[in-house]
Every structure is written in C-alpha cells, then in structure tokens.
C-alpha cells in the first residue's frame, strides 16, 4: 500500500498508548479510538486514504475499517465545515424547542440541515439524544456542549465561532492531566 499521510508524533504516541490497552493479539480493539484521533488529525473527516492508513497501523484489512467507520454516526465520511453544529432533536430537546433552534440556524446561515455554508465554515446536522436532556435544548460543536439554549444564545455562539475561524473538533488523543479540563456547561 502506498500511503502518504502520517499522524503527528503526538498523535502517534497516543495511538500506541491506546493499542497497549488490549492484549497483544487484539490490536483491532483500538480501532474506534484511533479513528477519532484520525478524524481530528485529518480535517474532521475520514477519507479512504485515512482509513487505509489506520488499517495499516492496526494491521487489519481496509474493509474492516470501512465497515466500522460507516456504522458509527460520529465518523464523517465526507468533508464537513470547520464547525459542525449538531442540534439534538429527540423528545426532551424537542419538548423544549429544538425545532426552533434548527430553524433559527437554518435561517441565520442560509443553509438547510445537512448542508454546509458556501465558505465551508459551518455544517448543520440534527442528531439524536446526546445525554443533555435536562439541560435542553442543546447543541454540540466539536467537543463542547452548549445547553439551555435560547435563540439569542445560539446566535452568540455562532458569531463567536465565526470570529475565531478555528476548526472545532475533538482532540481525541489529549487525555489526562496535560489536557485542559473544560466543564462545558456553557449556560
């Protein structure tokens, strides 16, 4: 296989640390955590090249990676905007007005759910219950939960993200003490 991409040194260290969590002949168990790291490293989505690379690291067949990547909703198999806005729309959030939040974002960004803005900054997605039901309605962006949303708050959150221009992803390998522990109950 002629793979060109490569993890950063830091990511690779975490990958190896994760592989060590399983018996030596059960390397494949590291697949899901490693895919999270890969997604964060390579632009927020998993290309065929990225998945082949992960397969080579874990010494499994590429198909074993594809079938897993396509099963789990957190893995993006297509490019997404820099900020993926994920609004929960299941019962408790719906009861508290999640539909309004979705409509508001659609209007503000001039996109429909599932779409990405022309400048590639935002993708809007509706998702199922994220375990914030008592703090509804809620929105997830990268590794942050924004809860008790109002429309004003939603607008502020989006404007802030817009001004930083940074990609919001989950830095899956930042574990333990070296990472900043942020309590993301952004009220």
């Amino acid at each position, binding site marked *: 296989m002629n793979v060109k991409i490569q993890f950063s040194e830091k990511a690779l260290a975490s990958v190896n640390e994760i592989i060590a*969590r399983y*018996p030596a002949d*059960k390397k*494949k*168990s590291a*697949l*899901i*955590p490693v895919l*999270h790291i890969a997604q964060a490293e390579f632009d927020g989505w998993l290309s065929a090249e990225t998945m082949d690379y992960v397969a080579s690291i*874990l010494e*499994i067949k590429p198909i*074993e990676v594809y*079938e*897993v990547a396509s*099963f*789990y*909703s*957190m*893995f993006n198999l297509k490019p997404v905007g820099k900020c993926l806005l994920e609004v929960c*729309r*299941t*019962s*408790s959030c*719906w*009861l*508290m*007005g999640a*539909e*309004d*939040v979705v409509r508001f974002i659609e209007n503000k960004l001039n996109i429909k759910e599932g779409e990405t803005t022309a400048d590639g900054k935002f993708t809007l997605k509706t*998702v*199922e*219950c994220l*375990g*914030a*039901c*008592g*703090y*509804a309605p809620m929105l*997830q962006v*990268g*590794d*942050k*939960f924004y809860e*008790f*949303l*109002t*429309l*004003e708050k939603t607008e502020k959150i989006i404007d802030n993200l817009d001004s930083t221009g940074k990609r919001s992803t*989950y830095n*899956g390998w*930042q*574990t*333990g*003490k070296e*990472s900043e*522990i*942020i*309590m*993301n109950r952004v009220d």
Partner: protein
Amino acid sequence: MSKKLLLQHIDVPGINTYEVYRKQGGYKAVEKALKEMTADQILEEVKTSGLRGRGGAGFPTGMKWSFLAKPEGVARYLVCNADESEPGTFKDRYLMEKIPHLLIEGMIASSFALGANTAYIYIRGEYFYVHRILENAIKEAYANGWLGKNILGTGYDLDLYMQIGAGAYICGEETALLESLEGKRGNPRIKPPFPAVAGLWGRPTVVNNVETIAAVVPIINEGGANYANIGVGKSTGTKLISASGHINKPGVYEIELGLPVEEFIYSDQYCGGIRNGKELKAVVAGGSSVPILPKELILKTAAGEPRLMSYESLGDGGFQTGTMLGSGGFIVMDEDTSIVKNLYTFSRFYHHESCGQCSPCREGTGWMEKILKKIISGNGTLSDVDLLWDIQSKIEGKTICPLGEAAAWPVAAAIRHFRKEFEEYVTNPQNIVDVKHYYRVNNLAAV
C-alpha cells in the same frame, strides 16, 4: 431529607478531585474489600443488598455476578456500560462528571470480587469532556496506588482503561457493546452464550451500568443488609433519576426507591412542579423505551393506589395500565404537548439506531417512522393508525436484541392511551397548525 448514598458529597467543592474525594471517606470500600473481605464475601453482600441493574433491565446484580464462569487460566473482565444513550437519560454522565472516583472505586472493588485483572469503562463518544475527567481520575487513582500492580500490598493487580464509542445507541446493549469494544460494528450477538460465559474476546465478562457499579461502594461500606433496608420491597436502595421536559427543576436526583411519583413531580425538593403553571399531561418514566402514561395513571395505579417510584409499582398493571422504571429517564409533558409528535421523535430515533440485523426491527422501525410522519404532516388516515398498531405488534419477541421491543412499546402505549389524539390528527388535519407542539424557545424563562 431522603437518604443519599451516591450523591451524599456531591456539593462538597472539589469532590471531583482525588484529594477531596479521599478526604470524604473515598476508597474506604476498596481498603475494606481488599484487606478484610474475600471475593465470595463481597458477592454475598451484593446479593443481600438486593441491588438490581441500574442500566434499565433491573436484573439482580448479585445473581449476574454469580453466573460468571471461572475457568482456570482464562482472563475474565468487568466492563462498565457508560454508553448512556437512552433518550431522557443523563444520570451516568452526571455521576462521572461530578464524582468520577466513585465509579473508579466501584470498579476496583467489583473487579476484585469478580477476579478480574483488567477492566474497561465503555463510554459514549459524545461525552468528550467527561472522557477527560475520567482519564484524569484514572491517572490519579494509578498515582495513588489504587490501580496497577500489587494494590495496597495485597498482591491484587488491576488495570483500568476507558474506551470511547462513536455514536451508536445500540452499543448500550451489552453484546453490541462488547463487539464495539473489539473494534467492530455494534451488532448485538445471538444469546446464549451470555457474556458471563463468552464475553469480551470470548472470555467470561460481566457488563454493568455505571450506577450499578457505583452502588457497590455504599454496599461494601455499610453492608448489604443496611442497603436492603432502604427502599421498598424488592426495589432496594436509591436510584438516580434524570428528570427532563416541562418541569421547573430539570436535573439528576437521587431518590429512595418507593418515593411517590406525585411527590417527585411536584415537591420543591425534586422537579418542583410543571413549568409556567401548566397542567401535567403525560410522563415517560424510564427512558424512551418504556410505555408513556397519562397523568391519571402515572400518579395513581389502576386500582387507585398512589404510584411509587419503584420497579414493582411502576410496573403495576402490566403494559395495560403500567410502565417500567427502566433507566430512570423521567420525561414530563405538559397539557400543550402533542403526544403524536413526541412519539414521532422516538420512532425516528429507533429507526436511526436499529443496527439492521433483523427484518422486523429494521423494516418495522422504518415503517413506523414513515407512517407517523405522514400523520403529523396532516396526510394520515384512520387506517394508518390501525396499521401502526399492527406493525408494532409484530416486532416483540421476534428480534435478536430488545431494541425491537423498545421501539414497539412506545408506539403501542401512545395509541393505547391517546388514540383520540391520533384520530384528531387524521380527521381534522386543518386543526393541527393550532396545536401548540412545544414551547417557543424565546419564551423560555432565563435559567
């Protein structure tokens, strides 16, 4: 004040750190378990406590542990189910976020009792910042000698790792969870064999919910008999309830099992009543999978007895007039709520989450979502309501895992108790626009 066993110290500042947790008596259960008790004695205490699985099914934990196969020379595992994806449920997140060492302490004591030298906490992928809190707490536990080799000089070794999921409700089902932990798609396994015999990598495994494992700590500290004295009948101990929806005080509450539902909803100590002075319409008492009950039946049983927060009382009357305690995801709906639309959000959820292995589940959930969508968009007919009933009745008992039933029960219950509302939807669709489906976001009181 009712007795608290898990969240007793939740308001102590810094209880999420090792130092403060330890100062409040943390890790005493590990000391007691490893130094003063044998594995069998711990199992006996858990049996005596009457503790039942807090993940949803309510299976007696002591009995589950006693099924664990112990062949010589084969590793066995404890796996903690922190996948928590049942709509309406957010208690495990609360516990891990606020007092992570309680879970770790429970994992150590339970692993010792089961003879496991490796244990995993499988946590849902979306709980990003909880991952960091847990990883950090695990590091602290290693650094202070509670994990690793020769713990407390007793010769007992334990490694504990966190494993993250990636967004799949089905991975909360224990065999799907094990598949996922092995790096595969989350397809539930056909049982038997049960995980107790062939679990993770085919080896004997116990899978328990976060709250179940945390409850082992007070059981060891105070003794199984004392634990069993709390609660009512076969519903012993305390339970974390995640309360959401149209109430004044949503959040996680630790209750003594047996608390009257009415007190839970209306007392200021708990939900604080229905918000905006509205009337209660219905409750889903145990997470999205359990049957919805209208006001009359959630507050009182069909026999007119006060309904209690317990496995037995919530189950009283079977599915005709009762429901289940489930995971404790307590979703409250006020008088303006459309039951049909709420049901649509559930059916869409189950269709999205079906793993697709069994036709009745894969096809049935898809059809139920489609028909409900047709009804709420004003294009339904009376025969659609009957068709919906027919489809749900053909799923139960015909699938590999209980997700099929979890998708069918809410549909059955909504039609059973609110058939008139479905009929109104299909006969007077022009009125639908006037139904207030939900609170407008801008009307929310500032929180």
